């Protein structure tokens, strides 16, 4: 956009000419539509300047974010298929639904580059429509917030009430809480997984009540996912809080925890996974992600590439316009 500053003060030549009649509209620059104004026009100069300006701003940003993205070390490890024992490989669903099968699964990951702490641990689900209308609405924020509205479960069907009373937390979202767990060790020493500050502070403080305790949760019928410790208030159930921030897209990551030590390159991390969560029924993938962050967040080349492309395109356009203007002026 190019704005050419410039005011037009169109003179009031006849303002005092006739004031004999009161019916005559009074003169003001507003009513006569003569207010001082800025009238931008697109001259070639401004077009070229705009393009160059966009190019000059965008290319450095693009470079910076690409650079930042390059510095992020990210390990993605898919385990849902590999963690099904070979005798169940044709019938993963039976394996996951059975209560008798051993769900423990050991994997090892190699760290490609040094990872500075904190290293964030995410689980990534695929093909899980947390944004489905039936799902997103299936929660009761009032109930989560205070004990007094415990029975406020009108949106929570079909997970609203059990025979013992209202389910806390109610709704499909809570019901389907992710319940795989990970334990990490490097060189046989256990890596502590910190759950501190993985949920939004605001959520913990105001959205999830400290006096609300889980009740009747996963107690009957179909079990959807993790059970909650009934002695811990909701405000401390960070996994639940994270899970309840439903994802925007069908492929999403959720923060599982943090590792507060640096990981060196070529370290072998062994992970003990409790493969409990049923994504097999809808062909969902499960991945474990370890990642560092930068100022643009996780690993994300798209932003940098897009900025570079747009900036380059603008410069190219600026040059083309300049050439056209030189060779074929109006």
């Amino acid at each position: 956009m190019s704005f050419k500053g410039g005011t037009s003060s169109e003179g009031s030549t006849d303002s005092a000419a006739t004031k004999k009649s009161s019916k005559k509209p009074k003169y003001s620059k507003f009513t006569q539509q003569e207010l001082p104004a800025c009238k931008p026009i697109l001259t070639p100069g401004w077009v070229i300047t705009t393009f160059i300006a966009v190019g000059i701003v965008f290319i450095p940003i693009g470079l910076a974010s690409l650079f930042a993205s390059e510095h992020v070390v990210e390990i993605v490890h898919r385990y849902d298929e590999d963690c099904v024992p070979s005798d169940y490989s044709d019938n993963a669903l039976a394996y996951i639904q059975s209560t008798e099968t051993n769900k423990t699964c050991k994997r090892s990951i190699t760290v490609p580059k040094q990872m500075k702490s904190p290293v964030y641990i995410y689980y990534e689900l695929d093909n899980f429509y947390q944004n489905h209308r039936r799902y997103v609405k299936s929660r009761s924020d009032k109930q989560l917030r205070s004990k007094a509205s415990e029975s406020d479960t009108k949106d929570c069907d079909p997970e609203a009430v059990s025979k013992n009373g209202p389910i806390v937390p109610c709704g499909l979202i809570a019901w389907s809480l992710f319940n795989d767990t990970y334990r990490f060790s490097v060189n046989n020493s256990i890596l502590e997984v910190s759950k501190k500050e993985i949920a939004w502070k605001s959520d913990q403080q105001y959205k999830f009540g400290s006096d609300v305790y889980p009740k009747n949760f996963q107690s009957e019928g179909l079990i959807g996912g993790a059970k909650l410790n009934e002695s811990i208030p909701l405000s401390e159930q960070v996994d639940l809080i994270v899970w309840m921030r439903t994802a925007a897209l069908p492929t999403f990551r959720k923060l599982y925890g943090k590792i507060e030590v640096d990981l060196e390159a070529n370290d072998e991390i062994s992970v003990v996974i409790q493969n409990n969560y049923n994504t097999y029924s809808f062909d969902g993938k499960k991945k474990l992600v370890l990642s560092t962050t930068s100022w643009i967040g996780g690993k994300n080349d798209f932003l940098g590439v897009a900025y570079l492309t747009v900036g380059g395109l603008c410069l190219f356009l600026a040059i083309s316009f300049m050439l056209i203007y030189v060779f074929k002026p109006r």
Partner: protein
Amino acid sequence: MNSDEPLLPSSQGPHTRVASSSCLRANSSSSSANLDDALCDIDLRVADRVSVGDRDTSNSFDHSKQQFNSAESHFFRQFLLECPAPKGRRLVSWGTMELQHEYKSSAFEISRAPSRVQEKLNKSQRLRHRSGQLDDNRLNQLNPRLIYVDDPRKTNDKFEFTGNEIRTSKYTLITFLPKNLFIQFHRVAYLYFLAIVCLNQLPPLAVFGRTVSLFPLLFVLCVTAIKDGYEDWRRHRSDRNENNREALVLQAGQFRMKKWKKIRVGEVVKILADETIPCDVVLLGTSDPSGLAYIQTMNLDGESNLKTRFARQETAATVSEGGIILGLIRCEQPNRNIYEFTANMEFKGQRFSLSQSNIILRGCQLKNTDWVIGVVVYAGQETKAMLNSAASPSKRSRLESYMNRETLWLSVFLFVMCAVVALGMGLWLQRHHDELDILPYYRKRYFTRGEDNGKPFKYYGIPMETFFSFLSSIIVFQIMIPISLYITMEVVRLGQSYFMIEDRHLYDSLSGSRFQCRSLNINEDLGQIRYIFSDKTGTLTENKMEFRRASVFGKNYGASLTAADPSQDVKLSGTAGRKRWKLKSETAVDSELMEILHKTLDGDERITAHEFFLTLAACNTVIPMLNISPPSGNELSEGVEAIEYQGESPDELALVSTASAYGYTLCERTSGHIVIDVNGEKLRLDVLGLHEFDSVRKRMSVVIKFPNGSVKVLVKGADTSILSILDEDTIRGNHLKCATQGHLKEYSSEGLRTLVVAARDLSDAELEEWQSRYEDASTSLTDRATKLRQTAALIECNLNLLGATAIEDKLQEGVPETIESLRQAGIKVWVLTGDKQETAISIGLSCKLLTTDMQQIIINGNSEEQCRSLLANAKARYGVKGANRKSPNFERKMSADTNYCEIPDDANVSYMPRRHLQKEEAPTCSSLALIIDGNSLLFDLATSCRVVICCRVAPLQKAGIVDLIKSRTDDMTLAIGDGANDVSMIQMADVGVGICGQEGRQAVMASDFAMGQFRFLKKLLLVHGHWNYQRVGYLVLYNFYRNAVFVLMLFILCAAFSTTSALTDWSSVFYAVIYTSVPTIFVGILDKDLSHRTLLQYPKLYGAGHRQESYNLHLFWITMIDTLWQSLVLFYIPVYIYKESTIDIWSMGSLWTIAVVILVNVHLAMDIHRWVFMTHAAVWGSIVITYACMVVLDSIPVFPNYWTIYHLALSPTYWLTICLIIIVALLPRFLLKAVQQTFWPSDIQIAREAEILRERPDYLGLRADQGSG
């Protein structure tokens, strides 16, 4: 010069015309009136039959009607054969005028237009009926209203008449809510809203929160209801004030005060000077012994001059003697025609007529009369003033109808999108059918151990789910149909009207009248006008008459008229030693004529001159008002009485003042007599009867009894109407007639308005016959006008020609310049006038409508054949395309040398053939084809002319001509006029403009816009019209874009087709209402692409409206493609950036909300031509407000989106994403704009650059010379 010579078309034209019409009158007198009005179609006549509806005369007419019906069916048969596919061609015709003939085949024209004309005129005809007086007459005949004077109880024994309480309010406390809602839901938009809200209340469809979805509708309804309620409260208050006013009512023999609301029909009221009349009152007596009363009808029709009303002599005498009046009045049922009243009264065994001059209407004020006594005939809601308070029919703007077409397209999109979503949903359900029970995000069944176990949960089977999905996607995408656009447009038009009203250049300081916007719907049509139909008198000219020339006894006076020379005046009057009357306006006198008048009364010339001025002074309806001024020191004014004339016709005023200047001063007028001061000598003349001017006779006459007992008829009227009824036996008469005709031609070629004056003595026998007929006619309740006309014909014959007058009607200021500019702007100006051909041409020349380099085509035939051949010749000569010839070069040449066409003297081709038809016993197909052919010939020729002047057109013909253009082209028409005769034209045209002039306010009442002077049209069209068109055109496109970009973005998001909205409910609701609406309104009101100076300097810039540059289908599609691109960018950039991230749905929604709001606002900012501080405030302000709203919404813990914005704002990615979205989304648009403005600049763009660069010449110093656009 011999009158037989066919040298002068005009002198011959009237003869034939009058002859034919009088021949018609012979067999059907009432239809002759209609005939004159009749227009270019057959059906009109059939419709007219109803209104004529006169039993004794309708026989012949019915006969002819049958002929027409059969002719019509013939015609339709033919039409089917000739025109297989007329529809397609019509679309092409809105290209440039010069080329349009090529696309039209004559067959097409033949077939389509007349039927459309029929339809339209039928409609207008029906409209006329509703208010038509003729129906009422008949009704009245069957069921008159009986009023017993001073006996309200007997009058109203059946309780059928309303009291005098009025109620203009619409609601009471109880009815307010239901009635107001009912009225509000007449808008389709609201019904759509309501349907959506209702859908949203259904459990399976609840997409938005239920209360949230109600919010916008409730908001709109509440605002409107509060507005309506307030207005109604004010009406209640004013009604109460009005009803509680008091008037003197005769109660038990005495006049006592009584509240207005208690006044009943039949009561006798007394009204004092300067009081307002409480109801419609028939005058019984006044303070004036002759029964005269003056009223001001300002509140009723806006005319400020005083009007006279009379009490009948019979009752007035009784009243003045203090007697009590008991009688019976039979009057018509209440109707809304304020210019007519028919009734009669039985009083003391006598029966006499009452007419419009005997009634004073509610709302008028009594002036110059001490008191009047009258009997109430209509009260309260039944008064004519109340019945008249209805609005004129509303019009719809062209752009809006196009907009509706595009809205239909959007509905199609909407439907398709919903269908896709539903289909997707269906397929998805099908594919996942087995998993639905356990899918954590679907769960179609309960798995509890309770009673619900196994029951389906909100699941109704795949077909139903698909259907519900369709419905719920309608709810989600509802915003696609821009409902808010209608409200926005109303607000914007209101703002535009405000600026038009406040424009000082549209203020007429002479009459003190501001510009008025009477219709708020068609502002933008002002920017697309292609044809202007203008009335001449009062519109192009000032309608302030000045007496210029006179022809008395075959001699021409006033050629060397000196401007009023007071010294000479004084000298003359001094020598005559007569008493001087002081007039408001001095008139210049011709000394030669003056001298003749001061000779002794002797000789033909002297007598003729005497009678001439006597007629001028006597034969009119002007009222003299004496103001005896106290003698001042000035010797001139010593003993001088100032006299002021009040009259409805400015012509008459001019004539009377002229007569006074020549020594014939009208100084008193009552219903029975007039007093004329002839050179100081008072002459009392008894007025035996007066035939008022009407448009059929085109003359008025008065029967005068001189003190010596002789009786004379004095007549004045249009030359055509008088010259044919002269006494032509004598040689002297013939000679006189020729000489006068010569003068008349001379006068009219100078652009003067002419009137012919004639008189004759009446013999006793004639007088007697006339008197009896006159009495009969004037007391009749039915067809009084017709009977009076017949009576008038008795005495208006064999007249002696006295002379002719010529009055100058000055051109209004700035008319030539305005017409010149309008022409440059590509607007065709047609002048439709009732004047003669010569007058019209001369006015045309003087106002630069016609220029010497134009080729003139004059079509002036008296018969159908002649007209046809003239038209065909003209067509051939100037190469106007009729049928299939195609030669663009030729066409261009033709349009280069502007020619004009003249259709004078009833040569309105469409009209002529019909008259033939009427005469022929069995009309054949071929003759019908001729009509149509003639019509299309006229159309072809006329549309290819720059200027068309139609002379001698009747009011309804004016409307017919407008309709001809309106129905056959897609061009916008504007009609401008000031008089009652222009009303039909003003209502017919797309835009009607009324001039607040001298001829009353009917035109203004019927118009869409009203202003003081013709020259304002230039600024109105070229500046305001242009701006409004640009603004509204952009506004509509932008609104489509704004809503669609929002919808398309949501569309893509469909998570497993479940129509989830990532945006919070409130954000979705606020989007169109709060986040983005204000800037569009401001831009719609305030944006200006060019300054008014540039627009006025280069009228050609107006062509942008003709070419529909601001709004067309092409632009719509480009906008939609742009919208699609922008919404794709809007959706995919965040999706790719946040792919495989932890982002939650509300953060994403928040990002989208902000991004879309900023995007549409920046988009708007990019297109704003002119930034004033308010635009800045609105555009940037709404982004700030959006943020503020988001912050507020995210600070409420019960919403799941709690605290989202704070988290987002901390992340640089968020800001970078928004920035990237804006740039990428707008890049194509910016590029397109830049390329277009650099390489294919439009006129407006060039003018704009020139304008801005001129203001700052130092800037680049380059292209300042490009502004010659």
